[in-house]
């Protein structure tokens, strides 16, 4: 599914300094019953955001108007657990284009890249600096520069580089997806399949 191109993003952030945030928290299983990709943003962190009677939990960061923006900053090992792409959809559909953490689970990272959310892995120290600064000044902006693979806090002149492979970077910059690429190489795939009987 097509997504908006990603180049440079400058935004305030939503901090979630909890480790091992799993995809069941990002979107609980009972919200996976859709047959279309619609409405997932509403259920992002559903059980942390709302009580069972649907009243908002006041102490959860997504219910705090101080913190908003297109960047979600999470603790180490973000997105572990289930392979549900619905987790990445809910992050994107809520309005986040980037998740910063000091470590990502593999499948969640791949899903993010496939749906147009940029996972930015930073050092543990830099992550702590980011959290500290967001708490000091909730409107502080973080700059994500994908062409140069840099994440920075311009106000403090602090920055760190991040990794992304050239292929995925090019996809994000242009809004391409893997399926277009694979369909384009169908001949080599069918040739390969002929040598690999079921």
């Amino acid at each position, binding site marked *: *599914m097509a997504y908006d191109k990603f180049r440079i993003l400058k935004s305030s952030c939503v901090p979630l*300094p*909890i*480790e*091992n945030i*799993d995809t*069941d*928290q990002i979107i*609980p*299983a*009972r919200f*996976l*019953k*859709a*047959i*279309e*990709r619609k409405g997932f943003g509403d259920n992002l962190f559903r*059980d942390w955001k709302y009580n*069972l009677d649907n009243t908002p939990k006041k102490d959860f960061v997504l219910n705090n108007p101080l913190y908003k923006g297109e960047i979600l900053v999470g*603790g*180490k*090992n973000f997105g*572990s*657990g*289930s*392979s*549900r*792409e*619905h987790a*990445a959809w809910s992050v994107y559909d809520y309005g986040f284009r980037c998740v910063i953490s000091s*470590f*990502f*689970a*593999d*499948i969640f990272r*791949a*899903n993010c890249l*496939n*749906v147009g959310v940029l996972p930015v892995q930073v050092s543990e120290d830099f992550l702590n600096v980011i959290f500290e600064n967001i708490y000091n000044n909730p409107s502080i902006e973080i700059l994500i520069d994908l062409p140069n693979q840099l994440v920075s806090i311009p106000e403090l002149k602090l920055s760190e580089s991040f990794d992304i*492979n*050239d*292929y*995925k970077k090019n996809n994000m910059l242009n809004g391409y*997806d*893997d*399926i277009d*690429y*694979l*369909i384009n*190489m*169908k001949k*080599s*795939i*069918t040739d*390969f*399949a002929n040598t*690999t009987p*079921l």
Partner: protein
Amino acid sequence: MKTTLFDKVWDSHVVSKITNGPEVLFIDRHLIHEVTSPVAFLGLKNRGIKVLYPERTFATADHNTPTINQHLPVLDALSANQLKVLEENSNEHGILYWGLGHEKNGIVHVVGPEYGITQPGATIVCGDSHTSTHGAFGAIAFGIGTSEVEMVLSTQCVMQPKPKKMRITINGTLSKAVTPKDVALYIISKLSTAGATGYFVEYSGEVFLNMSMEGRMTVCNLSIEMGARGGIIAPDNKTFEYIKDREFTPKGDKWEKAMNYWKTLKTDSNAVFDKEISFEGSDITPMITYGTNPGMGMGISNEIPKVEDQKSASKSYFKSLDYMNYDEGESMIGKKIDFVFLGSCTNGRIEDFRDFAKIIKGRKKADNVTAWLVPGSHKVEKAIKAEGILDTLEDSGFQLREPGCSACLAMNDDKIPKGKYAVSTSNRNFEGRQGPGSRTILASPLVAAAAAVTGMITDPRTLF
């Protein structure tokens, strides 16, 4: 060059390598279910393309299905619709479909091996993280997202960077009441839930050699819980005996030819792994979890670690213990529980029901416990009946439900209520995993059985 089992299988499936990018990996067999496939089929429709190799995809309904009254209409409208859409998509594209009520229906990772869809040396994917289960047969198997399901449907390939390789070796023998589930929970407790992220893990050593195929599946299944893409175990005679004569395994000359290849599927001596880890089988005891991720596990007779034992992350640690309403330093033995769940792709096979029956035989279900015993498939259900296990269960006051993923992820009505404790043989103790506000304690079928008859956390070694 000396290569690993993983390299042999992976490298033989690479269609092309993209410079500074992922590899295009050909997928032999693709398993789908109702939850992570509909949007992928919708993508195909929007692109106006068909499934490239429908004979390589197999569909079963499991995540969302009720585990009682499966012969009646599904009451939840959204679940019913997802099941209907899977059936329609399968029919439209000519995909084999084992829906609700079909005699071969069951959890995708249980039926794959049962019918010989899972084979050594194959690449297998499914939109489900526990696809790692199939690695027990010497296959490369891993979970994928829905975009990747669409890739496989449309091109039979995924694009993945080649993972690093880790080998976990456990020699020695396992003690009494120590099951494959305990081995896996032990490894995860040592490595943490992120300890193998970025790696594909080969399990080797006497403990895995001596393990049944069911046990190997349990271990490989839980590979994802330490962050690994998957787990793999070299196929041996046990593997070949298990798959021989199953519906989708090769027959006659083709079998001989396949066997010649499968026998080559092992890691060369002196092959190099990016990381090697070893444990001793005799160090492992029956395990239990006390927190909200599968890495928070310990020997059942130990005490919940005090925070000075935790390297960092005390805030997340206490958030976890608060959720469970447990304290550091406490023993888990004797703690009251409310529910027992035996089932899932981790521990829903016949061997798990045999273990459970061993403990409960001659005892009664505790009055304070609600027990949900859910076979992984109709084939497992039939074996439970044929082996007389059902009689044992019923004599002790238990009932058997119908197959499905059930309370493992609680998409259907099998939800543990808020605040209640469930001893579960499944794979994840995340907050609310088994229902909003539910509290999960992961354990083996033996520990689950001990809890079911005593109503509290009980060391199964005291009940033999």
